[in-house]
């Protein structure tokens, strides 16, 4: 009898509630633990992906390299929630948002310490790793 094989379920650490545990891009979580939010880039055709992907939909290659998201993106749009799905109630109120980095966009949350009246479409923001109160990891947008 062989020993029980370890299951790579790192993705279960992503977000307040994760709905996925096993994915070929689980290294994303290890990068988060190191304080980095990463994209993948196809080494064959050069296309950059966020969210990261294991497989390139342009040239069908599965050869990817990781690159860190740096600099600022522009706030495309956002919404502040007063109601939440099951499992997210303790986070209320929170804002979900989209940031445009030019080559790709990032969907996530606005950092809880950014006052509502300072959130404006078009503002420059950065993406940073965040540890949630339940120990889970995600990333948030902060004022640049």
């Amino acid at each position: 009898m062989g020993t029980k094989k370890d299951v790579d379920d790192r993705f279960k650490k992503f977000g307040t509630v994760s709905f996925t545990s096993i994915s070929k891009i689980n290294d994303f979580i290890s990068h988060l633990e190191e304080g980095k939010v990463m994209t993948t880039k196809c080494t064959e055709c050069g296309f950059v992906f966020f969210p990261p992907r294991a497989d390139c939909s342009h040239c069908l290659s599965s050869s990817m390299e990781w690159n860190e998201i740096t600099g600022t993106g522009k706030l495309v749009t956002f919404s502040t929630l007063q109601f939440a799905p099951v499992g997210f109630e303790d986070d209320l109120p929170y804002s979900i948002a989209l940031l445009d980095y030019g080559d790709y966009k990032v969907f996530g949350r606005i950092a809880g310490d950014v006052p509502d009246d300072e959130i404006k479409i078009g503002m420059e923001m950065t993406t940073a790793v965040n540890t949630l109160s339940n120990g889970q990891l995600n990333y948030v947008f902060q004022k640049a």
Partner: protein
Amino acid sequence: MGKVAIIGVGQSTFVRKYPGSIKELAFEGFREAMNDAQATAKNIDASIVCSAPEYDKQRSPAGVFAEYLGLNPQPTFYVESLCSSSSTGLRLAYSMVKSGLHDMIAVVGFQKMSEITSAESQERMGRGADIQWESPFGTMMPAYYAMYARAHMEKYGTKPEDLAAIRVKAATYGQINEKAVYRKPVTMEMFSDPENIMGRPVASPLRVGDACANADGSSCLIVASEEKAKEFSKKPVWILGLGAATTTVNLAGRDLFSGLTAARQAGEQAYKMAGVTPKDIDVAEVHDCFTIAEMMAYENLGFAEPGGGKELIQSKETYKEGSIPVNVDGGLLSKGHPIGATGGSQIRTIVHQLRDEAGDIQVKNPEIGLIHNIGGVGLYGNVTILGR
């Protein structure tokens, strides 16, 4: 190849909690459509069942329905495209009839949203997007459409009151639709009254009154070849144009946030196939799961220029007496939105209009009608053009 027609339409009353099983619910829409078509089960040579399966306890409802509706041994097929499932069903029925493989098909849409508990429903709502990359942030349908509303307001100066005006219109007609789940009037004042639930924020800038009513319901369309249509129906309604498109699930993959690209592309396809333009449309049903969705539909379908939707509603041009009546059956906002049944219900309204059988909501002498049915947050777009 001959034309393809809709010769029978039906729907159940849309209710909060249907007091029966899913097959009994489906039977209600099916019976009305079969009576309308004056057809019997042996005339139907295939069925297509449409719903969002995450609300069902029953696995593979299509087979269960085929038995309950008396449609054995004819084949049955199950299709799903979230809230646009039954207009996807119509597209498939059209293709199956047009190919000559079948000549009369029942397209049965249903959803019994109360089949699962409210907590289970809330949990599923959280998974209505990209579960790997979006849901872990705590997303919900209202919040996604709110992001579109915010972008629309920023780009075009649209106001919350412009959106509320769409809700007021919907309620005007929901009150007189006996099959609607929400039969009460809604006024602009209700949105500004802090004591009233309508103005309570859900996901800024959208409020309770901007969201459609959940409901249980079923719908059914009987789709027939030209030959069968002429044999069975005095007033067949012809399928003139069909458009269907998709876009990325994750908002990060999209470029437009003041409109839905899949809706616009589906509209262009349908107009081209039918050989008509937006000006030729006499009456329309659009997917108003939220008020902002109807506003964007005006613009994506060419009833207004981009940004011109607010003038269209404020001038009441989308009321029954206006130049382009939209959702004069109460829409999803008041009639209710039983996901898999919605497209079929929208199509039923337009078929009634084109047959001059719409009663109190009848638009004057319409010849061409349009149905815009969206799945997810603009993920799936279906546009159907019908003519008499």
